[in-house]
């Protein structure tokens, strides 16, 4: 069953925005088992939920209503793409590559060379 697209909306105030964010967050958490099944991921539900939470935490400090609305829109698009299988396994797995151990932590360095080594060895 295809998930219907969500129309864009403008948040009235902070409280409204917060409510919309939480509702999207819940949607993501609820869908975690479904995502694993759909995309045939070799991950557990808590792993997916932890990853979702990480994405939300990254944006926790955003206070600008316009930016929040924009992020909401992007989150919804991402959700739609994931649930409708417009993404493929590899796209979903892009979020998990570090956990997979593909980027070897030994090369994590402050100057950004981590990405160089992980790219070099993985390609």
């Amino acid at each position, binding site marked *: 069953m295809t998930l219907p697209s969500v129309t864009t909306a403008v948040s009235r105030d902070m409280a409204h925005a917060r409510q919309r964010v939480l509702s999207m967050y819940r949607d993501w958490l609820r869908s975690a088992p479904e995502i694993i099944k759909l995309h045939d991921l070799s991950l557990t539900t808590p792993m997916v939920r932890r990853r979702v939470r990480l994405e939300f935490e990254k944006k926790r400090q955003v206070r600008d209503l316009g930016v929040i609305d924009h992020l909401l829109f992007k989150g919804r698009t991402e959700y739609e793409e994931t649930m409708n299988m417009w993404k493929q396994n590899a796209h979903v797995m892009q979020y998990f590559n570090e956990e997979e151990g593909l980027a070897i932590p030994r090369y994590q*360095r402050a*100057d950004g*060379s981590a990405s*160089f*080594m992980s790219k*070099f060895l993985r390609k």
Partner: protein
Amino acid sequence: MVEVFVDGRPVQVPEGSAAIQACELAGVEIPRFCYHERLAVAGNCRMCLVEVERAPKPVASCAMPVMPGMKIKTNTPLVHKAREGVMEFLLANHPLDCPVCDWGGECDLQDQSMRFGSDRSRQHEPTGRRAVENKNLGPLVKTSMNRCIQCTRCVRFANEVAGAEELGTTGRGNDMQIGTYIEKTLATEMSGNVIDLCPVGALTAKPYAFSYRAWELKRTESVDVMDAVGSAIRVDTRGTEVMRISPRENDDVNEEWISDKTRFAFDGLKRQRLTHPLMREGDRFVPCTWEAALGRVADAARAAQPEERIAVAGPFADAESLVALKDLFNRWDSEHLFLETNAPELVGQPAGFADLRANYLFNATIVGAEQADAVLFVGTNPRHEAAIINTRFRKAFLHNRCDFAAISPEMTLNYDCVNLGDSLAALTDAKHPFFERLRAAKHPMIVLGSGLLERPDAAQHALHAAHALAKTCTNAAPGWTAVNFLQRQASAAAAFDLGFAATTAAAAAKRPAAKFVYLLGADEVAPAALPADAFVVYQGSHGDAGAALADVVLPGAAYTEKSATYVNTEGRVQRVRAALTPPLAARDDWAILRALSEFAGTPLPYASVQGVRARLAEVAPSFAAPNVQAAQPTALAVAAAVAAKAKPSKAKAKALPAVTLPVTDFYLTDAISRNSRTMAQCSRAFTHQIAESAHEAHIAV
């Protein structure tokens, strides 16, 4: 300057130019077949007819010199009619081959018949077209002589630029034919250019005949690395394969020609490629992961003492990987870096040679070589080592009556050249009458070949003697540097610029036996120069001689697969662009070294190609501005400084061994050309002059 009017518009053109050039300046394109800016005017195709006021009939604009106040009309019914008529005559005898012709889609005749030809044919009989026998011009140029429209561009090119006088015309009128009179191949290293010049598909490429259609190809503008000239090329690819290489225009370097090696050696890119890291186990190579390979290399490097680690760069090493390799070795406190030119024996440079840019560059510049009026070659055959520069020398020969002499073994050039023997004593003596001519010349050139570097003492002696000689050239134009060094490998100038090849002969002689050897695409190292117990790493694109010596092989990218910087023999910094991605697990060369540095625990401070380029500019400022030929303001001062020190003694010169030529077979010089089937055929046909068997010749035509 004279003023002429093209379709009523006034234009200023230099005196003596042709009407077609005036039209071009006015922005009016005149159709043409035989006219070519870089060749003599023939005026035999008549496609460029225009109307000139007060002339009784249309005139061929390419053969018509401009006259002051001349009024040219290019857009009148008479002109249209004339073009249509010429087209009709040409097409009457041209086969309707377009669907199976390699030139289809790029053909001047095709394009122009669409634009200027008549829209219907008056020819109804299916037979009766002119038929001409095909000629066998050797393994490179395929002929389909029915298609020839007798523009004679190929003949003019062969005679003027390539100096191969065997190509010519026989017969006249309808019976005129292009050929070599007797069964003979077109033996010149520039022959491929006639393929581009031929406005129709009469001359096409034999090695890759029928393998592509022009519109399927992806075009990438790049620079050639088969020699140190750095010709501008276009790499045409389809999917993951290079289908063809053709020249781009660059007036400062290659005009619009390229040598046959540049054009045809690319099939070597598809054979013997290294695609995975390999590790030696007993007497075989086993594919492994990058982690395993780099880990093993790093361990081996750590196990050796700093003095026991050496690196050798080969002919295709780009500046990025050279600087990364140098930085890496310096981090390991190792300084023994060599350039393959000095191999096979790994002897190092003459003292002070790498310190001054003017020592190792072609100071007169490639364009400047055209002005030369007396040239002395020392240990170099420009025809083999820099075929494009040789065309400039030929120009000097034709237009300036330049005199040539060579201190080298006997060689065949496509202009007159006096051989002064193969002993450097001839240079020190400077007794031969030719030297009088050199001293009196306005633009004298002494061209030292890179083969001299195989013996540092000989190179040093030659350099000093050359400077001493240059000092006596009192007639030289101000600002002219007579002493030139001709590199033959694309990596050489960059290596010197970066201080990569700074190891002096004295230091090299003192170093202990190597325990860890890093070959960056170096295939010509004499196995004897490497101790049997040394750990050898080969990084490169081809499984050639160098890889056979290795304990670990790291697959790198070939020049069509990377974006990299090269410096040509005149010091021009140029960028090669990637047309393809490296095959399978192969990687960009600088990135391999960067990754190795990480495994060795001595990471290099750059992680992106921009970072490496910033480092390049830091080491040698000339890298900051690609595509310019950096001036050498110090050249004269340097010459003076070197000459002051120079005390070339005759006795010493006599003791030196005879000068040899480093390239004996133009077609087989490096890993790519050695793996090219086309180059092997050329070597057989041209270098060794082995005739094809009757059967082969039959297939070839």
